[in-house]
């Protein structure tokens, strides 16, 4: 399955945009009640704002000009009350709509993260970490800016505009139609230009993603850059990404700013139309100068928010471009679904590979027609030259991938019928590259461990001692409380492997796979580890992948993995012979 977000097919992109938009609206669906109240507040607020000038105008015409000061005071009190109500409605409008925006962003972030958790390992191997991080961080932030800042203005402006438009048409329908006609041109231009704006912004977001991937890769591997004296490498690669970003940012910037002068131009043209058409109407006796003056101000009330909408519309397009990139992720589905109906045949073997074929991409098959059985309580070793398919085989046991052909049975049942929870409880897999989270040794050892998660340090230490892991903990300076920084160099690779080992053993799996899991640990400690492995419950099946033969000497059975084939070796000697004679594929 293709998970590369930058190589999604046109069709995948199209459907994802549509499905994405629908999803975006779904995120707001449960807020209907709040939205209706907010809408009411917005309408009240705009009406009050539009009535203000009308009342002031009325006061001038009726009272000030006729020197009736009590009338002035009378209207002033009415105005004051209106302003008080507006104070309240405008507060409500902002809090309600802003609240909707914030909660929507919250839901959105959650659904992206949730989706990321659902996708299989293949997805993460096909995309650069930096690009993914940029999608989740930068692109949601673009949506955030729209929701938290622009959405309220957007709605406020639109309601002011509609109100002003209605006033324009009510006062004089012909002049109103004439005054609003430039708005139609603007509408047309907006529709025509929006895809271009969105496209340039999408390009820009893509180059931002590329740049952040570049920074991520270089900074995380900085020691190689120093040791090979390629400080210029970072500079050069970054420079290319930076220039690319500059180019796309200018393109996006020019596109984003095009509306502001254009909207301004049409607003002025509308004024010109009102002025000339209005004067014409006055000349034939259908209009008055006083009306023309207030008409011009209503036209302003219509076109000023429109001008602000120009900027907001651009924000909206930027947000949509970000949303598209996010919904590309949301549209992906895992290719490791759980099936309900599968083969069930009681068998002695705890795990069985039956004619399994597999390749990371369709064009290159890595494993060819593999069949073998693992029995409960036995220790198996997978040996063979590098690149022969050992890690791949182990990954299939843990169902990080599904075979392209063939069947894997766990406890006599198709492995695909197990829930992830059942499966991960049965199968422990210590990965070749240990990964630790920022936190402490304790947090990392107990990571994902439901049984011991609430244990105090003392209780946990007892568990660790009982599991014979006590001497391993002693290697850490502050024991369980030793701080850990993910990806940092504060503890050695060997120590990281020890934590991964303890983490897996304490989960007490039925099958424990060690993929060169102790490669960087010294041989004395390793001896300790193999004692611990031997003392695991008699029912635990162990699968050990290693180059150092002393780690596999206790194996009950040895499989020789080479060129994508798994052959059973009779004895350690057999395996050694095969290792020596076996041609190197890698």
């Amino acid at each position, binding site marked *: 399955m293709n998970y590369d977000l930058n190589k999604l097919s046109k069709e995948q992109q199209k459907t994802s945009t549509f499905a994405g938009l629908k999803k975006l609206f779904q995120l707001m669906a449960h807020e209907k009640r709040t939205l209706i109240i907010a809408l009411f507040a917005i309408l009240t607020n705009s009406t009050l704002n539009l009535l203000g000038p009308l009342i002031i105008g009325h006061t001038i015409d009726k009272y000030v000009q006729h020197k009736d000061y009590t009338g002035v005071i009378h209207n002033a009190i009415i105005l004051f009350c209106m302003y008080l109500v507006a104070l309240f409605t405008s507060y409500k409008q902002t809090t309600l709509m802003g609240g909707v925006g914030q909660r929507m962003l919250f839901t959105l972030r959650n659904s992206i993260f949730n989706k990321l958790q659902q996708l299989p390992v293949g997805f993460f191997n096909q995309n650069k970490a930096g690009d993914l991080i940029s999608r989740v961080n930068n692109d949601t932030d673009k949506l955030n800016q729209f929701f938290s800042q622009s959405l309220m203005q957007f709605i406020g402006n639109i309601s002011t505009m509609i109100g002003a438009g209605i006033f324009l048409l009510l006062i004089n329908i012909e002049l109103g139609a004439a005054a609003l006609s430039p708005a139609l041109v603007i509408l047309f231009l907006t529709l025509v230009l929006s895809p271009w704006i969105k496209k340039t912004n999408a390009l820009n977001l893509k180059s931002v993603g590329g740049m952040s991937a570049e920074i991520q890769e270089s900074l995380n591997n900085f020691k190689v850059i120093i040791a090979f004296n390629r400080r210029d490498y970072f500079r050069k690669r970054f420079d290319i990404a930076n220039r690319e970003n500059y180019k796309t940012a200018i393109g996006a910037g020019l596109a984003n700013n095009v509306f502001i002068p254009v909207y301004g131009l049409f607003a002025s043209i509308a004024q010109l139309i009102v002025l000339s058409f209005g004067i014409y109407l006055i000349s034939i006796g259908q209009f008055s100068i006083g009306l023309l003056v207030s008409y011009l101000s209503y036209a302003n009330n219509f076109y000023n928010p429109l001008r602000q909408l120009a900027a907001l519309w651009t924000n909206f397009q930027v947000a949509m471009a970000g949303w598209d990139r996010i919904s590309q992720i949301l549209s992906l589905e895992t290719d490791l679904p759980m099936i309900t109906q599968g083969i069930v045949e009681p068998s002695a073997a705890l795990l069985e590979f039956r004619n399994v074929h597999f390749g990371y991409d369709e064009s290159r098959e890595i494993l060819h027609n593999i069949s073998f059985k693992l029995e409960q309580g036995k220790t198996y070793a997978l040996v063979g030259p590098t690149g022969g398919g050992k890690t791949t085989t182990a990954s299939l046991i843990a169902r990080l991938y599904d075979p392209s052909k063939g069947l894997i049975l766990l406890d006599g049942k198709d492995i695909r019928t197990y829930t992830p929870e059942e499966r991960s409880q049965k199968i422990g897999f210590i990965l070749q590259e240990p990964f630790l989270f920022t936190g402490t040794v304790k947090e990392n050892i107990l*990571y994902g461990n439901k049984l011991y998660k609430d244990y105090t340090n003392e209780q946990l230490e007892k568990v660790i001692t009982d599991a014979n892991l006590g001497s391993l903990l002693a290697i850490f300076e502050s024991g369980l409380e030793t701080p850990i920084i993910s990806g940092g160099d504060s503890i050695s690779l060997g*120590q990281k492997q020890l934590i991964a080992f303890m983490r897996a053993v304490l989960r007490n799996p039925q099958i424990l796979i060690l993929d060169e899991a102790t490669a960087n640990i010294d041989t004395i400690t390793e001896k300790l580890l193999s004692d611990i492995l031997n003392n695991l419950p008699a029912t635990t099946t162990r699968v050990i992948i290693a180059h150092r033969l002393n780690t596999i000497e206790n194996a009950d059975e040895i499989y020789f993995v080479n060129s994508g084939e798994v052959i059973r070796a009779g004895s350690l000697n057999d395996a050694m012979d095969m290792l020596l004679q076996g041609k190197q594929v890698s």
Partner: protein
Amino acid sequence: MQTNTPKPTSKPPGVFSLLKPYMGLVMLLLLFALLSNGINLWLPKIIANGIDDYSKRLFVFTDIIKKFSLAVLLIFIFGYLQTVIQTYASERVARDLRQKLSDKISRQSYAFIEQANPSKLLTNLTADVDSIKLFVSQALVSIVSSLFIIIGGSILLLTINWKLGLAVIAIIPIIGGTFFYVLKNVRALFIKSRGVIDQLNKVINESILGAALIRVINSQQLEYHKFLEANTEAKDYGLRILGFFAGLIPIVTFTANMAALTILVMGGHFVITGSMTLGSFAAFNSYLSLIIFPIFVIGFMSNIIAQATASFQRINLVLNAPDIAAAGTLKETLRGDVELKHVSVNYGQKPALKDVSLKVPAGSKIAVIGPTAAGKTQLLYLLTGLINPASGNVLFDGQGINTYDSESFHSQVGFVFQDSIIFNMSIRENIAFSDTVTDESLDKAIDTAELRGFIDGLPDKLNTIVSERGSSLSGGQKQRIMLARALAVNPKVLLLDDFTARVDNNTEKKILTNIQKNYPGLTLISVTQKIASVEHYDQIILLMQGEIVASGLHDELMKTSTDYVQIFNSQQSTSNYETGITH
């Protein structure tokens, strides 16, 4: 490692100081902004004149159309030019700032990067630069033109009627005060919410980098809860910030409306008593609406400026970090003598190496063995200059490591790291990572690392792109690519950090033979776990808890060091096989 606390300067440079090199652009930008704004003020005048002329029966229709069209056209042109220059100016500032940052970062030491934390530097290069970009593209123009309008409008108000004028202008400090109060509170919340966002990003980053582990353990739910917690906190801050803004806008609008009411009541009184004309009264209203909007703008822009200032300070922290000590100038070809004299290294509070001394004559082979976390990797980092000793000297051919020109030094010392670091580019570029590599030395390195067969089997041979974190390669393949990378520089000294851990014995032996044959005279320092493959080395050093507890030939150590014998015995059972079979 040392902490780089920035020297306290008398006053941190404001974000405006950033604009100095772009004065020309900025001036042009302000010129166009003022021109288009100025002409905009002219428009109502044209309309007013038109109306006046009409009532005086002096109306010339084509004349007013011409004037108006000209004004509109000029506004459009100047307005458009303004946006173009705005875009160019802000993007150029951003690009140059990023480049300066990357230049600075690229010259820093490994310790600096580790301490500054790559993900924070990423924020510096992206989010912080963006907020400065926003300052240049929006705040600058808005503030200058807003001030222009407020001052101009206020003067006009005062000249029409100073009493009413003062009453109206009184709203400016009220609105200003409200903005000041709200933004002060909001800024504190912004800083806190930024911390929450950092936490959010950390959870995202770790869940992406640790994706495989999370799937093996099936801890997606756990990660989701971690995320949910941070996300909820982010939402709460968002709502609190919203609460302040939701209060701000109505209050400001209400104050402005009160000003309009004052005009109506006070101005109405003046008109009725005859101390003010109706025209001036009308003008007051329109000028009020003219100055209200710019006050809003300045309020919001002051927030952008505050954010840009904070970002600029963070960026300056990186830009002003002291440069690493001037690199040496010595460019001599190394013979390959390596010596450590009483070297100590601290990692945080804890000593990683304690008073370590050792001598490696040119062309000899030495091995460093020892338990996990003994300081073996630290020792190699010292020898490449990745870290500096807290005390003691690191000498190559009798000269301190820092006296060498770094380019010349690094092209003679090859380092194979323990953890696989593969860049997302072609295999050729990954191996010929140093730019001193020739085709010939590339070929030699590939053959020596036994990679020929593997590369020939790939669809695009050397030009095959390997994915980030090398996830498309097996552990051993990555390790051998890293070896080839180190060998491709034709080193005089080769440092191997647990190289054999992920390579099978057979391949390992071939590779070590190849190295002897293809790189004669090479000084080899190898950190390893396997005694069998280094038994014949010229010197074996046993490192435990940061101290050298024994060193010498294999046979000597077998007689003198019980620790060594213990390690040897732990490997005995199968090494018979391993050595036996090769002979």
